[in-house]
C-alpha cells in the first residue's frame, strides 16, 4: 500500500499541467444524419471535451440537413436495426449532448460549403453551427488534428 504523499501528487499535477499547455484536437467529419450515428458523434464529442480536447466538427450532406433548425429535434431514423426506431427516438438525444459539450469546452462546428449549397443554407439556418468552410480547409484542419474521424 502506498500513501498519498505530497511529492507524488505534485508530480502527477505537474505532468497533467504539461499535458494541458497544448491542448490536443479531435476533428470529426460528420456526413451522416441518422439518430444513431449522430448520437455516436455526440458521445465522442462529450468524451473529448471532458478530456480537454479542442473539438471541431465538419458537417457534410446529411449532417447539414440534420442540423437545420427545423430538423434538429425531429431526427428519428436509424442507419441500422430500424425496428428500434420508436424506442431509440425516445432514449437518444444527440442534440442536447452536443449543446452541453459546447457549453463546457471548445467545440467548433462548421458546415462544408458544398453541402450548404446543396441545401441552400447559411449558418443562421443551422443550430450550433459557427460558420461555413470549404473542403480544402477541412482537409488542412484534419491533417493538423491529433484525432481525425469520419462518421
Amino acid at each position, binding site marked *: 500500500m*502506498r500513501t498519498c504523499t505530497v511529492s*507524488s*501528487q505534485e508530480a*502527477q499535477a505537474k*505532468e497533467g499541467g504539461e499535458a494541458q499547455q497544448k491542448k490536443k484536437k479531435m476533428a470529426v467529419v460528420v456526413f451522416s444524419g441518422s439518430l444513431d450515428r449522430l448520437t455516436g458523434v455526440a458521445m465522442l464529442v462529450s468524451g473529448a471535451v*471532458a478530456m480537454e480536447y479542442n473539438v471541431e466538427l465538419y458537417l457534410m450532406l446529411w449532417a447539414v440537413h440534420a442540423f437545420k433548425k427545423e430538423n434538429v429535434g425531429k431526427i428519428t431514423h436509424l442507419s441500422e436495426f430500424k425496428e428500434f426506431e420508436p424506442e431509440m427516438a425516445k432514449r437518444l438525444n444527440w442534440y442536447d449532448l452536443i449543446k*452541453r459539450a459546447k457549453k463546457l469546452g471548445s467545440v467548433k462546428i462548421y458546415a462544408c460549403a458544398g453541402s450548404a449549397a446543396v441545401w441552400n443554407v447559411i449558418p443562421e439556418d443551422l443550430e450550433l453551427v459557427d460558420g461555413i468552410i470549404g473542403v480544402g480547409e477541412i482537409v488542412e484542419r484534419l491533417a493538423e488534428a491529433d484525432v481525425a474521424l469520419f462518421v
Partner: protein
Amino acid sequence: MAEGQLPPEELRKLKPDKVVDARGVACPGPLLAAKQAITEVPVGGVLEVLSSDPGTKRDLPLWAKKTGHVFLGVIEERGYWRLFVKRMK
C-alpha cells in the same frame, strides 16, 4: 492500487468539499459532471463523484491525470462507485 491513491479505509475518512451524484447517468455524463463540479471545489480540496456507470472508474483517473488533478481512489458500493479527486490548481 495505483501510485498516489488511498486505500478505501482512508478514503472513507475524507471530508469532500463537494459531492456530485451522477448515478443513473450513462457515460460520459459522470465525467462531464466531474468537469463541471471541480470548479466549485477549492484548490487542495476534494471532490467526490458518485457513479453507477462502469466506465467512470477508468475514465476519471485518466481525466484527473490529463487535467492536472489527483485521483485519490475509489470505493465500490452496491451498484455504484464513490470516486475521489483532489483539485490541484
